[in-house]
């Protein structure tokens, strides 16, 4: 079974071949290297993973399509899909910063400023919307150069975590 794992911040997805051997054992091949992995999922998104005798306590946090992986103090975020799912997604180009990009609220708060309007050309890193939470203002920036095609954010309104704010295409 082949999975494609795209790490947040990376442009390319890395293929991983997974073969379940039963009894929580897996054969995993990535970048030409094969690992025998003993991975037991516990409750609350915790996994205990043994790889070549090394013990890793892994904590998962799902966030939409992405999963955050906390392992020995390091957090990495991956979007993992199998081939079929990848095909389903091909149209939306979610696996790359090319194409349509949705900017969402990273926390619940209040939209205090909207810096763009639909149709604006924006540069990568340009401020789009300012959200306030816990008395701090946070400017959300464009992940790519492009054009604002949709705008959900309204000044003065409260937004939930992950609320859609702007689409840049």
């Amino acid at each position, binding site marked *: 079974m082949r999975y494609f*794992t795209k790490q947040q911040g990376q442009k390319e997805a890395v293929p991983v071949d997974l073969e379940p051997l039963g009894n929580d054992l897996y054969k995993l091949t990535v970048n030409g290297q094969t690992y025998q992995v003993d991975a037991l999922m516990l409750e609350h998104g915790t996994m205990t993973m043994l790889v070549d005798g*090394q013990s890793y306590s892994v904590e998962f946090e799902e966030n939409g399509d992405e999963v955050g992986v*906390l392992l020995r103090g390091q957090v*990495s975020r*991956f979007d993992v899909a199998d081939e*079929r799912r990848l095909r389903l997604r091909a149209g939306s180009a979610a696996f790359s910063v090319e194409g349509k990009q949705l900017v969402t609220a990273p926390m619940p708060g209040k939209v205090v400023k909207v810096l763009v309007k639909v149709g604006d050309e924006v540069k990568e890193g340009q401020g789009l919307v300012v959200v306030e939470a*816990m008395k*701090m203002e946070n400017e959300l920036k464009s992940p790519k150069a492009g054009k604002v095609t949709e705008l959900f954010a309204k000044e003065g309104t409260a937004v939930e975590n992950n609320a859609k704010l702007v689409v840049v295409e």
Partner: protein
Amino acid sequence: MPKIRKVLVANRGEIAIRVMRTCKELGIATAAVYSEADRAALHVRTADQAFFVGPPPSRESYLVQQRIIDAAKQAGADAIHPGYGFLSENASFVRACEAAGITFIGPPASAMDAMGEKTRARANMIKAGVPVVPGTTEPIATLEEARVYAEKIGFPVMLKAAGGGGGKGMRKVERGGDFDSSWRAAKSEAMNAFGNDAVYIEKYLEKPHHVEIQVFADQYGNTIHLNERECSAQRRHQKVVEETPSPILTPEMRAKMGEVAVKAAKAVNYVGAGTVEFLVDVHRNFYFLEMNTRLQVEHPVTEWVTGLDLVAMQIRAAEGEKLALTHAPEPRGHSIEVRVYAEDPARNFMPSPGRITYLRVPGGPNVRDDSGVFPGYTVPNFYDPMISKLSVWAPTRAEAIARAQRALSEYVVKGITTNIRYLKAILAHPEFIAGDYDTSFLTREHETLLGKEDPKLTEMALLASAVHAYQRDQKRAKSLPTAAGPGGGNGGVSPWKLALRRR
């Protein structure tokens, strides 16, 4: 004064719980107050009683003096502990408590008045003979006067344009020989930039450290200090890591600063726990910055090395008990506190309120977690995003750092982003380990402190994410009646389509 039997804690979060813990140990009943956003908060459940005081914004609830006092009356509380923040340094609230016949656990209103406003505090301290950052604050008329003043406060000095701001019109003078020319240049620059050549002089502090002295006084004028705390690991004047003893203090400096702090407290007839903050420059001169007339967030490190319970001492002082100590206890070992915040250091420390889905708190020897959260709790976005103060003790500083690292490595908070990794990076930074880090440390080293990825760990995380995806997909497949079981199959509706639809 009679014994206190019930305390209303006019605060929320970890400090409310901290105070209630000591009350419980002393056999004193507790009453909590809560805003609409805090009905589910832990401090409500920790107290024996709880009273609603208004809508989420603090100015409509926790800061409304009358509501707090009404709650105390309703509870039959004979005392109010204000914690820190909120009404803790509000002299008019102290007077309102007095008027209502309720003991305020803290200093008298007059001491708050004397220390409350910066220039008034500065004037009071100068009068009491406490060193303040030397400076004229008013423009100086002639070169001669200015030179005499500069020599008096000692070089280097800063010349600052009275009409300026934002760093403009500032000029550092290293030595006396340069003074006259610098003075003239500064005046002409000021004139060009602001149309006003008024210049004033302030002592230039090189690599300043923030070192504060804990003081304690009873109602009879007995006043002692309880050693220092080093709080130079700051970000935007927000303390992030605190420790005691300060790695830059000698026993002589400790004694001298302690003596000055006691002098400052006595000058305002202080009662209870207070903190005198100093700036210490590279030459180890120290200058009064301000006095916090309340319990400090970072008081646990002082408790670790002295064995004292500052909250219990506050209560006893409020009951009119005489101070049991006559001088500062010798600091025993070393303690470090780190503040765990719901924030994302990689995104400019953006707050990360939200629901804590899973929580594992460190344990084992000499680790203390002061926290107000629990699994299932939603960190509201109305208040300070600090979710825990983690403090440790060890015989030496190096061991304390190692222990803090170990404890942080056990801390797991899921559902929200925290600064745990950033805290580990601070403790691992050579400048922190060396011990001589000034208040610019965190800002200066920001990029380094965000850390780099370990490619080996990323690869392990990648393997884990693949197993996670596999198990997720297996589970989804199983939960669909038409799915063909493990390994997939393609009859019926695609599990993927269903899974996507469900979003």
